[in-house]
């Protein structure tokens, strides 16, 4: 039995195609398994994330923050501490920072004379009362303690409530 050259070539080509397809499918299968593995990992990560989110909310719950703040000698904000950005006109850095414009804040900071370097930190961890005092005394001279990332209202109330406890 003799086969023509073209028949042999045709068979060879067919075999090559089949082999190629097989390899491609095998590779695809491998990738699929990897995808499934990653999806499974995603499920696990999401579960962990939910627990982490819940824990974050628990740690930042108002009741806990209030208790912690009171041990530091802080008190609830009184209406007199609520001010507008315009009230801060004498402190351009703070005004710009609270307006949410870090560029203007930086410009204002450059325009001001450089501040003296901050006093060195005490070497050992300070007690709650000790750590509250330096920031409180620093607050009236430098009301720009709040960074631009802090939401305006929160910045206004936190920095000022520190200031008020000093009075």
């Amino acid at each position, binding site marked *: 039995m003799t086969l023509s050259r073209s028949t042999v070539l045709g068979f060879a080509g067919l075999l090559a195609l*089949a082999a190629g*397809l*097989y390899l491609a*499918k*095998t590779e*695809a299968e491998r990738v*699929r*398994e990897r*995808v*499934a593995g990653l*999806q*499974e990992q*995603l*499920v696990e990560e*999401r*579960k962990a994330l*939910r*627990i982490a*989110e*819940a*824990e*974050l*909310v*628990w740690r930042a*719950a*108002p*009741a806990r923050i*209030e208790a912690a703040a009171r041990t530091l000698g802080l008190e*609830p*904000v*009184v*209406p*007199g*501490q*609520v*001010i*507008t950005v315009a*009230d801060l006109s004498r402190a351009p850095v703070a005004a710009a920072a609270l307006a949410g414009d870090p560029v203007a804040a930086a410009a204002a900071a450059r325009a001001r004379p450089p501040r003296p370097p901050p006093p060195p930190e005490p070497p050992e961890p300070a007690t709650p009362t000790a750590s509250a005092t330096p920031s409180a005394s620093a607050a009236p001279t430098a009301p720009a303690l709040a960074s631009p990332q802090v939401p305006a*209202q929160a910045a206004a*109330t936190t920095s000022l409530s520190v200031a008020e406890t000093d009075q």
Partner: protein
Amino acid sequence: MTRVLPPKPKADGARPAKPPLKGRAAPAGTYDPLDMSGPRSRPGTRGPLDGRMVFLLGCFAFGFAALAFRAGQVALFRDVDVARTSARAAVEQSVDRADITDRNGVLLATSVTAFSLYADPERIWDPVETARALRTVFPQMDEAGLIRKLSSKSRFEFIQRRLTPSQKRAVWELAQPGLEFVEESRRVYPQGQLAGHLLGLSNRDGDPVTGIERAMNDRLTAAADGTGTEPLALSIDSRVQHVVEAELDQAARLHQAAGGAAVILDVHTGEVIASASWPQVDPNVPAGRQANAAQVNRAVNAVYEMGSTFKVFTVAVGLNDGILSPDKVYDARQPLTIGNRRINDFHAENRALTVQEILSHSSNIGTARIAADIGALRLEEFFGRLGLTAPVAGELKEVSRPILPRRWGRIQAATASYGHGIAVTPMAVAAGYAAIGNDGTWLRPTFLARADGNAAASGRSVLSPIAARQTVQLMREVVAHGTGGRADVDGYPVAGKTGTAEKPRTGGGGYDSDRRVSSFAGIFPADAPRYAIVVLLDEPQGAAETGGVATAGVTAAPVVSRVVARAAPLLGLMPRRTYAELSAAR
């Protein structure tokens, strides 16, 4: 031991007769031990294309062809997406109940994966040892009961549902065989007691029995079929809710109250900004393990005779109907007698009072006279339009119906005009005050966050804007110069009315002068009302700080003042006086 072997064929080359083909094809060259038909030929003794050989070859060829076909089909044409879709389904199933957040997206309730501990008693070596080890982690467990469980015949005994991560680690570290974990979903309320009544309690199996969890169960579980994984946003502001709960808790403890409630409503949308009930509950703890008295949501599920806070409603309808003006004078020199009922004043002025003074001095006599002018029919109708005669619950399922006079005669109208003989929930009073605060439109309170501005359409007009504003002004005077002085806040003018109502005697007629409900209902800021607030203390006792007095002016009103001072900045309200003015005043 004997065994019957088939007779061996002789190897003499003699060809026996071809046995008939049986139903099964024995492989060539083997002997069927059951075949007793006699000696057979050895393989290979015939030509290569013996009929049986052809048949067997055909069978093999067919089998291999089928295998090759199937292998090719599996390798080349199998559904590509099976693995991927099943994994995706698993991702989506990991959220089985939608989260609940406050109006700002702060998480109030979420579902996390928890591990439940079960035992496989068959694999436990020593039930006593395992039980003792378990009690080092769960000291509250009963040792005898544990041993009984661990030595039972079953293969699955729950030891503890929904462990905390640290408990799970501790059990893991016991290294006891036969203790296994199974994953379960667990509902957690990361803010603890915050808005506990509103969120709702669950039973031992974790099924919701009260609150939003029960009322909105269908919406929350829609997540399980992948349609609604969006968190449910409530109308409350968790920061304000905390302030309200903290101040209510402090006042209730100071005055040794039996209970308390507080509500803040947005007067323009009907959204509940805060809703508190005291004693508090922790939704993380099953209902069965909390005190019964604490489980009642006193904001919507308890009715009180509110007393003088109702006088505002009476005056409002009088102003609306043109019967009154703020300066109209009523005779309050003598106690008023209607039928057999004698109406007295608590702080008797014994003189003629203007409408303003009737509110400021909280005169029952004056208010009853106003009610007589309004008429019982109109008063009943107005209270109905103001939502005081039907349950007001928002979305919650647990709600109390108001207790109303059986018939509205002259006496009933007179007492109802100053808040006696009619008992409603604090939420209903807050909704009534909100209607006064928004120029006269009653809005159904809601616990769900509303998109801005689509609320007004659902309200019903109950007062003319002029009457509503006049009423707010009269209430402002009560706080500025009357019984509600301690509710005021420098910078945030409060308008409102105190109410000190004696409670009906238990099991008898009349009222008990030792047991009362002290409340304050109001609106802030008075010059441009945004929020209605109600604070109520049930059976407060006089405290040293208040000179032994337990009336609303010294119990509930100061709570309002502290809440407004702390909550108004959080709600984005600017003080009415400038920073410099307020600093100078202090």
